[in-house]
């Protein structure tokens, strides 16, 4: 039987931040790299993001935030993912996130944080190399 497994990625915009240029560029790049990209649109609550990840059975979540509210929103998202048993989903983030905040976010299990202007190829490679293995 022909197996047609595709990598499914959720690109999410948590909180009220409305800058979506980066999120859309990354979504398009991942699609052009052969992945299925679900985009939530703007202004998503942590609950909406996690529930979407669950229903869409995604392999990866990319969180985009430029408002500075990552310190409040990311812990909540990671906590909800744990609660719903989605610990096998790989999470990365991007946007305006100062270097000094990164260690704390990585402790939450966010695998990598990409700054503005990161080459899309870097992100694509990162996703390909870090997709969680599914049994």
């Amino acid at each position: 039987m022909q197996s047609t497994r595709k990598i499914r990625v959720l690109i999410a915009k948590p909180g009220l931040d409305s800058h979506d240029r980066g999120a859309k560029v990354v979504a398009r790049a991942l699609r052009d790299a052969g992945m299925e990209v679900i985009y939530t649109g703007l202004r998503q609550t942590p609950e909406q993001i996690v529930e979407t990840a669950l229903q869409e059975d995604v392999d990866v979540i990319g969180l985009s935030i430029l408002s500075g509210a990552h310190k409040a929103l990311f812990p909540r998202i990671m906590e909800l993912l744990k609660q719903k048993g989605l610990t096998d989903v790989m999470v990365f983030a991007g946007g305006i996130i100062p270097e000094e905040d990164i260690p704390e976010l990585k402790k939450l299990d966010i695998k990598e944080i990409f700054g503005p202007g990161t080459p899309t190829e870097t992100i694509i490679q990162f996703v390909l190399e870090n997709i969680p293995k599914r049994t």
Partner: protein
Amino acid sequence: MFDDEKINEIKRERERWEKTTLPKWIRQCPECKSEFRNHSGMLIKRVYTPEDIKALDYLRDLGFPGEYPFLRGVHATMYRGRLWTMRMFAGYGTAEQTNKRFKYLLKEGETGLSTAFDYPTIMGYDSDHSMAKGEVGICGVAISSLKDMEILFDGIPLDQVTTSMTINGPAPMLLAMYVAVGDRQCVPREKIGGTTQNDNLKEFFAQKLCIFPPKSSVKLTTDIIEYCARHLPRWNPVSISGYHIREAGATALQELAFTIYDGIAYVESTIERGLKVDDFAHRLSFFFASHNDFFEEIAKFRAARRLWAKIMKERFHTKNPRSMWMRMHVQTSGCTLTAPQPLNNITRTTIQALAAVLGGTQSLHTNSFDEALCLPTEEAVRVALRTQQVIAHESGVTNTVDPLAGSYYVEALTNEMEEKAMEYIQKIDDMGGAIAAIEKGFFQKEIADSAYRYQREIDEKKRIIVGLNEYTIEKEECPIKLLRIDPKAEKEQIIRLQKVKRERDNRKVKEALEKLHYATEKDENLMPTVIEAVKVYVTLGEITEVLREVYGEYKELIVI
């Protein structure tokens, strides 16, 4: 400007130069690209000569500053008479904290105020709303009621400053609060000066802070234009914005064309409301970005002035020359700043600010070097302000008006910008106007494609960003100090809000909200009702909720 014979002679000589002098230079030192284009897609020649502007008629196409077509400047003396307003966008935390930053900037020499609101305020949520959690005061000041506004302008006489407010959906509410503060300070309404951004159209395809659907949003923008025309003669009701369009990924040409088109749409909506164009057009103002391609930006600013003047004259038949003025505020580009090696951003901001000045801006904000990381510290914002002051007082560029006029390159580029922008305008006209184009996803697709192309250029190193894809360093030697918003601010803000709600006359609040609901259903101009409501301390969120009920909420059309 040149006679045919001379042009032919120049042409012959250029061709000779291309055959004789040029080839050995190309052999010795080949050009690094086969084609040089700016991001708007325009082909940049190796050398510009009078041939490139041979059709230019000085009196018809350039004229004198302060006169139609206003290419050389809206004022006759420009910076020799009065420098541009140095207006630094500021705001964070509580009203007290921002009041302090306002006073600091005024002390350091800024000449106009500009307010950044936090996301909950921008989206019409009070600081205690569930959607506001974790976002209060983070990227701007939190304003939930008149009380906050009173604190924000405490000790700042509104008859002595002008204030710009970057607010769109809730613009009626914030303007109402500002007017109420002015009333409290006993400043006559005719003296209240400033700007509300209030440009809802661009929200649908650029800044994305839209709350209500397109038609209702344009109605609210028009309410403010109408109200100001009748009652607030010194207030700029709208700042028709290209900045966000550009930052969303558009090219300079698209920024120019789409902004001008939004302007056209607002003029039309206000005329439809029943006003005569010369009653309000002189108070329409504009807001552009300034990016790194120095001459492209200068050409854009100049083209914008001439294009708007022509449109006002020919399309809308204005009689008052002031109705043809394109008065603009410029902000240096945020998206060109880099997080690595942030001090390089000072250089970028300087180039961009200089372009804005040479482009003839009326007002300027310069970004701080740390803004790719978070909101600016006091030191960083001072450096940004000083950048403007150095240009103003040390560079000499202000000694004459429109110094680049007559440059073969700049004039050719200005002409091309204008011409291509007109093509876009015609296209959008054919589509049925701004709202039709938004619904078709036209602007969104243009912007998404330009944004993607830009990123590909960076990825492929066809576009070098210093410190990002070239000249990178392993580790920052001196990590800079960052501004962190104290999470206490959110708690304080909520406590204050709850106090306001307790202490106000809630019967009057109920009445005011009912009145507002009625006025909204009846499609009346909402300004008077909103002013009354804010004065009895109805909150921003409560007013927005009424409007949401009647107008519904907008859901974005996604185009990548």
